[in-house]
C-alpha cells in the first residue's frame, strides 16, 4: 500500500536531493520565476534534521552563476550543495586523459577553463540552446567521425524542458542525433547516470535507501534515482505533462497542504500515487 511505503520512506529518510529547474523555479526571461511555496519549503527542509543537496543537469551556466541566480530569486543555497554535470565531466576528462571539443552553452565554458582543448579526442555536448546550429552540430560531427575511436559525452540526456515561453529541446535530442550520425553510443554525465547519483550520496554519507530524490522529470530524476535504490518523488510542476504511461494516480483527499509541492510518488512503479507533503508537516 502506498501509504505504508510512504510512512517507511519518511521514517528511514536521512537526506533529500532536489532537482532544481521545474521543482524550485521555472526558467525563462531574466532569472525566471520561483515556483509558489518552494523558497519556504527549502528553508523548512534546511531547518529539519534531513541532509539536503541539489542535483541539476543545468549546463547553461557555471555553478557559481547558477547559485547566484537562485539567490536573487530568494533561495538560500550554496555552491557546495549543488551537483551538476560539467564539473563531473571535467573529473572524467582528467582521469582518462581526454581533450574535448565542446558544443555547450557559452556561459558554462568557464567550467572547462583548466582543460586542454587543442587537438580534441572527444566531443562533449551540453544544453547549448541557440548554439545548436547546423554548423556547430556539423563541426562536432566532423570531429567525432574523424576519430579512430569516437568518444561522445552528453551532459544529461533530457528530451525537453520547460521555459516560460514554451517547451524546448534538451541535450538528449542532439545526443541521439550524433549517436545516429556516427553510429556510436554516448556516455551520459549527470542525471540519470548512477555514477552521478552515487557521488551525491557519498557526499551526504548516506545509503540510497535513506535518500529521496524529488524532480519533475520522470525518467531522469525519479527513474534515475530509483535505479540506484533511492526513493523518488515526481512533482507536477515544471515539465510534467501528466501523460506518462505506467503511473497510476490516486488523489487522496485532505492530506496535503496546497502551499507546498503536490506530488504523485512513484514508488517502484507498483503503487498508485497520492498527494503528500514534503518534509515534516506544518502543525
Amino acid at each position, binding site marked *: 500500500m502506498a501509504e505504508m511505503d510512504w510512512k517507511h520512506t519518511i521514517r528511514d529518510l536521512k537526506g533529500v536531493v532536489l532537482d532544481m529547474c521545474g521543482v524550485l523555479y521555472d526558467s525563462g526571461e531574466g532569472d525566471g520565476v520561483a515556483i509558489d511555496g518552494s523558497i519556504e519549503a527549502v528553508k523548512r527542509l534546511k531547518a529539519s534534521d534531513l541532509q539536503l543537496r541539489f542535483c541539476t543537469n543545468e549546463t547553461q551556466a557555471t555553478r557559481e552563476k547558477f547559485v547566484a541566480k537562485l539567490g536573487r530569486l530568494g533561495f538560500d543555497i550554496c555552491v557546495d550543495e549543488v551537483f551538476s554535470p560539467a564539473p563531473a565531466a571535467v573529473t572524467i576528462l582528467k582521469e582518462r586523459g581526454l581533450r574535448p571539443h565542446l558544443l555547450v552553452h557559452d556561459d558554462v565554458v568557464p567550467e572547462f577553463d583548466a582543460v586542454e582543448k587543442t587537438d580534441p579526442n572527444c566531443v562533449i555536448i551540453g544544453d547549448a*540552446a*541557440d*548554439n*545548436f*546550429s*547546423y*554548423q556547430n*552540430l*556539423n563541426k562536432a*560531427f*566532423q570531429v567525432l*567521425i574523424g576519430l579512430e575511436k569516437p568518444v561522445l559525452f552528453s551532459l544529461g540526456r533530457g*528530451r*525537453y524542458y520547460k521555459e516560460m515561453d*514554451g*517547451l*524546448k*529541446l*534538451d541535450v*538528449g*535530442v*542532439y545526443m*541521439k*542525433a*550524433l*549517436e*545516429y*550520425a556516427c*553510429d556510436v553510443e554516448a556516455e551520459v554525465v549527470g542525471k540519470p547516470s548512477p555514477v552521478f547519483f552515487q557521488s551525491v550520496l557519498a557526499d551526504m554519507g548516506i545509503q540510497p535507501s535513506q535518500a529521496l530524490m524529488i524532480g519533475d522529470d520522470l525518467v531522469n530524476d525519479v527513474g534515475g534515482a530509483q535505479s540506484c535504490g533511492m526513493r523518488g518523488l515526481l512533482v507536477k510542476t515544471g515539465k510534467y505533462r501528466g501523460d506518462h504511461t505506467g503511473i497510476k494516480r490516486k488523489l487522496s483527499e485532505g492530506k496535503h497542504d496546497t502551499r507546498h509541492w503536490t506530488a504523485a510518488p512513484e514508488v517502484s512503479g507498483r503503487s498508485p500515487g497520492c498527494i503528500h507533503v514534503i518534509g515534516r508537516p506544518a502543525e
Partner: protein
Amino acid sequence: MAARQRLKAVLIDLSGTLHIEDSAVPGAQEALSRLRRAPVAVRFVTNTTKECKRTLLERLCRLDFDIQEREIFTSLSAARGLVERRALRPLLLLEHSALEDFSGIETSDPNAVVIGLAPEHFNYETLNKAFRLVLEGAPLIAIHKARYYKKKDGLALGPGPFVTGLEYATDTQATVVGKPEKTFFLEALRDLDCQPEEAIMIGDDARDDVGGAQNSGMLGILVKTGKYRAGDEAKISPQPHLTCENFPQAVDHILQHLV
C-alpha cells in the same frame, strides 16, 4: 520458380544508373529508347530532398534522355502524395529549391511536419517549432533518413540525425517516405494501375534500390555503375534477381526475358 505476372512497369534510378554526375552512362539513351518500344510503363525514381522535378528533368534533357516530367517520381513526390491523401497542412523543413514540388499545398496553421535535408532550417528555433507540433500530435514525415553525405570539403550531416532527434524528443516514429521504404515503391506505382509483382526496379544501390524494391514485391536489377562496390549483391537478402554491368544490359535482359 513461381510464374510471375506479365511485366507492366520499369522503375529506373537516376544518379549512378542513367548518369554519373554530368555524364550519361554510355549507351543509356539508346537503351531507354529500346525499352520504350516495349509495352511497359517507365518511371524515373530518386531520393532527393533538394531538387524539384523540373531541375532533375533539365539535367536529364541536357544529357539527351527522352523523359517527361510526369514520369519522374522522387521522395518529395512520395511525401506530397502522403500529405495530399491525408489532407495535411505541413510545416515544410525543406530547401527552397524543393518547395516547388509542394506548390498548391496548404501550409498555414500546420498540423504536420515534413523534414528533408535543410541546413537553413536545422537551427534551434525552427526545430523547437517542429518539436512542439509533433508533441501535440502532428505526424512527422521524413523524406529520408540518410546519416550524412559527401561534400567537396568533407562529410556533412544528413536529415537522419535530426529526424532521430525529434523522434526521441516526442517519443514518436517518423513516417519515412524515401527509398528503401515500401511506401516509396508503392507510391511510385500508384498511378500506373500496376501491382509490385508486375514491376521491376533498376538501380546501383543494393540496399536502397534493389533491396527496397524486392521487399515491396518487385524484382530488382543491380547495375555495377555509380556507387556499386564489388560484393554489394551479397549484402541483401534475397539477392538481386539480376546483377549486370550497366543500364543497357539491364534493358537487354528485360526485353529478352521478361516482356
